[in-house]
């Protein structure tokens, strides 16, 4: 079928929509589960709805170039608002629905929105609570009427009513209908088609301006890259305001013409995935991890026969699955064993997860553990990694089918150019590249080089095959006193891939060698202790058990071996480590609310321990203040042992290069 090739000269989303309505009027375009039933709109219905909605919005006064906020979950009405606004040449601004009122007020005010389309009463209330700070906002549209009956409706409208008004207007007034179509045809590639606000980890969020032409060009490249067609289907459960949803679900669907299914609610997304059986899927590593944990737990509770069968065939899959997936040559016996395994284990398992029909799946956002990654791949799930950014309109690199290396994020996607700066920072030029930050020329200038490359802020390097490895945020990459590269997060991630290690904090900036502090994972290590008959009375006691230290010594040695295998990282092997007596906690300021370790703060708070790591002593006393959940404070004192790590032989440079 058509892979977007016929839609080549169409340069806005509204034009694409009408083209789909013409080419495939009866193919499903959108689904939504409501009151327990999947309702489907085909492309022709969708185009009519959007046309009517655009007419209604026009009557309300939404004009070309004006912004309209979209706040809600992945519901059809939210996507319709984006499309209808784009039809009129207005600019949709999706906002994270779970943003607190304060953050939301900032974005709405910064984006100069006069219109907002929101999901329900909760969001309407939020807007009312911040209306003083968003003086330009005058019209609010809502999707779910519940609870809004008694609200003042002078500036508040149901989306449904606006669509109906538009329909009536189009039917009654021929010139209005012609005007609406003219409005669509006025759209061009250089139009700003959306503003995506990036959740700023530092400072206020920035509004990334993307053009219609750029967005569509980028989506065309990846639709071709992954061979997506109008037979594909996705379940849209990623936040609307995140580039991932707007690209993977919205833009790719509008280019390829596939169906976007909207879940009943956020909580039901998993069950809905199973019902829909998407063929293209994206999830952050965390989701895959949670699913694997659940599978493991269920298999441990299963009967001996089932468990034995599962373990045996997972073994077969681990050995041969990825090779078969990558189309390599494997012996006939292995192929046969894998087919039986597929019949008995892999297919039923994938069915339970809703993964039966997946052709292409991606993960990104953070590093994924190699074991976790290959587990899913060995089941025959074509899981790949991509590296992208809002500013790039998503893809910078992606792994092509059959060329997967766990540690890397693949080569540059088609039409993307990548350069590595002298300090290791990754720079790129891409077709979907943003045109700037909204009302922030200064930060735009900081981010884009004079040659038009965008700075990612991430440090990375290419392997000999041209696959990119991202090691850390560029500003966090430091140097040991010897001048060797020290990428703390890279080391920490490698450690955290062990289920027994919950957190890791690496030190080494301007030091002679690298040391780490580790947190045990109480569930995993607790289970292990139970099986080994190791008695313990508290977290603190378990963490300091010699058996746990012994196990962790093994883990650290393994990480060192992995580091030694990479020429640029070999010098940053871990020499000494300790296991902390308490869990690092956001309440104590040791981690951010998004569960990232705050290295600097930890170094200060646990100074005696850091000193002990470097002065060669075997143990150190420490007392720290802790905050309990009810807000009371207490002191925890402990004697923490420090262990030496096994350092691996560095691979000979000749071999590695």
């Amino acid at each position, binding site marked *: 079928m058509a892979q977007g090739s016929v839609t080549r000269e169409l340069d806005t989303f509204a034009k694409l929509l009408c083209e789909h309505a013409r080419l495939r009027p009866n193919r499903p375009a959108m689904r939504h589960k409501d*009151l327990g039933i999947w309702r489907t709109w085909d492309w022709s219905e969708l185009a009519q709805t959007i046309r009517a909605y655009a007419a209604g919005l026009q009557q309300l006064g939404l004009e070309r170039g004006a912004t309209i906020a979209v706040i809600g979950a992945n519901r059809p009405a939210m996507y319709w608002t984006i499309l209808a606004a784009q039809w009129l040449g207005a600019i949709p601004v999706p906002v994270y629905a779970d943003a607190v009122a304060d953050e939301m007020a900032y974005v709405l005010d910064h984006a100069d929105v006069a219109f907002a389309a929101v999901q329900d009463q909760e969001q309407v209330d939020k807007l009312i609570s911040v209306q003083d700070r968003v003086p330009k906002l005058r019209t609010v549209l809502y999707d779910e009427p519940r609870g809004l009956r008694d609200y003042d409706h002078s500036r508040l409208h149901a989306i449904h009513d606006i669509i109906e008004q538009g329909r009536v207007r189009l039917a009654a007034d021929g010139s209005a209908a012609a005007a609406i179509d003219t409005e669509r045809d006025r759209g061009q590639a250089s139009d700003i088609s959306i503003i995506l606000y990036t959740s700023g980890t530092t400072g206020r969020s920035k509004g990334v301006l993307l053009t219609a032409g750029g967005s569509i060009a980028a989506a065309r490249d990846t639709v071709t890259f992954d061979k997506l067609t109008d037979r594909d289907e996705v379940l849209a459960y990623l936040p609307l305001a995140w580039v991932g949803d707007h690209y993977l679900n919205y833009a790719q669907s509008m280019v390829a013409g596939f169906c976007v299914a909207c879940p009943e609610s956020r*909580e*039901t997304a998993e069950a809905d995935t199973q019902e829909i059986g998407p063929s293209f899927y994206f999830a952050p590593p965390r989701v895959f991890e949670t699913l694997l944990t659940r599978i493991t737990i269920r298999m441990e509770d299963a009967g001996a026969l089932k468990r034995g069968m599962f373990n045996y065939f997972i073994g077969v899959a681990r050995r041969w699955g990825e090779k078969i997936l990558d189309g390599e040559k494997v012996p006939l016996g292995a192929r046969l064993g894998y087919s039986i395994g597929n019949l008995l284990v892999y297919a039923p398992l994938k069915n339970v997860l809703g993964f039966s029909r997946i052709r292409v799946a991606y993960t990104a956002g953070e590093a994924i553990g190699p074991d976790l990654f290959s587990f899913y791949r060995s089941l025959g799930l074509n899981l790949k990694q991509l590296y992208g950014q809002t500013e790039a309109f998503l893809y910078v690199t992606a792994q092509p089918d059959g060329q997967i290396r766990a540690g890397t994020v693949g080569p540059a996607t088609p039409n993307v150019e990548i350069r590595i700066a002298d300090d290791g920072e990754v720079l790129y030029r891409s077709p979907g590249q943003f045109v700037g930050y909204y009302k922030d020329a200064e930060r735009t200038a900081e981010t884009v080089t004079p040659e038009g490359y965008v700075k990612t802020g991430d440090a990375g390097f290419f392997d000999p095959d041209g696959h990119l490895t991202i090691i850390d945020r560029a500003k966090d990459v430091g140097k040991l006193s010897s001048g060797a590269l020290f990428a703390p997060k890279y080391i920490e991630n490698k450690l955290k891939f062990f289920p027994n290690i919950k957190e890791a904090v690496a030190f080494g900036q301007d030091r002679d060698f690298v040391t780490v502090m580790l947190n045990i994972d109480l569930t995993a290590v607790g289970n292990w202790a139970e099986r080994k008959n190791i008695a313990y009375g508290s977290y603190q006691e378990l963490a300091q058990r010699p058996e746990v230290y012994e196990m962790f010594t093994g883990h650290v040695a393994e990480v060192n071996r992995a580091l030694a295998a990479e020429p640029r990282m070999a010098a940053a092997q871990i020499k000494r480590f300790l296991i902390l007596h308490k869990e690092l906690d956001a309440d104590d300021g040791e981690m951010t609310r998004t569960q990232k370790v705050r290295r600097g703060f930890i170094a200060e708070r646990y100074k005696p321990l850091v000193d002990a790591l470097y002065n060669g002593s075997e143990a150190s006393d420490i007392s720290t203040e802790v905050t309990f959940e009810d807000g009371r404070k207490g002191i925890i004192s402990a004697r923490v042992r420090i262990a030496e790590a096994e350092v691996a032989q560095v691979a000979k440079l000749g071999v590695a290069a």
Partner: protein
Amino acid sequence: MNAPETLLAVDGVSLSFGGVKAITDVSFDIRKGEIRAIIGPNGAGKTSMLNVVNGFYHPQHGRITYKGKTRPRMRPYQAASQGIARTFQNVALFRGMSTLDNIMVGRTLKMHRGLLWQMLRYGPAMREEIEHRRVVEDIIDFLQIEAIRKTPVGKLPYGLQKRVELGRALAMEPELLLLDEPMAGMNIEEKEDMCRYILDLNKHFGTTIALIEHDMGVVMDLSDRVVVLEYGHKIADGTPEVVKADPKVIEAYLGVGH
């Protein structure tokens, strides 16, 4: 405000089990469209009172007038078929059945096809089932329990079970809803949700609600009028402000003077 219509009136009701007097000569009324709370210390006779109202207990003395009809006693199924639904202090659901099926049970009285038709799941029986399923789905939507539609209720946390139980009571499309400690054992968030549902029900669907509750904050915020029982006697009756200020109520709750 026009004179509110009385939906249910309890007149001089006394109930005893052998020598134990559970309720002694209690009279009060519930007006159409109000939220009426029944409060009192442990053992004051609150649950017994609800049981009298929905016909589970038969009082030795007194009369109950419901929708203009006075009767000395009512049987539970009569109460149910005339629009009185209730939830229980200790959740009483079918633990092995899904949320959906539990709520569907609440539709039983409204289903008219015979067992045979229903077993065949064919023709009129199927149409009827679909119709009722739609009502149930509306309730599921109202209570925001889509995610647990197919989960056996025995596996659900307590707060959600309470919500499912409310759903089952709503499936009867009651005129009078009796809630026996709807917030017992809930955390603050669950309580807030439950309050929201109770208020929405009352405001938007006009359901009259009588509830027993121990959380005074909830009672005072939600109810239009409160009746206070102590040792089976009514000691106060009126708006939350009046009741709160009544010395007898304060005494009953703080236990002074005995």
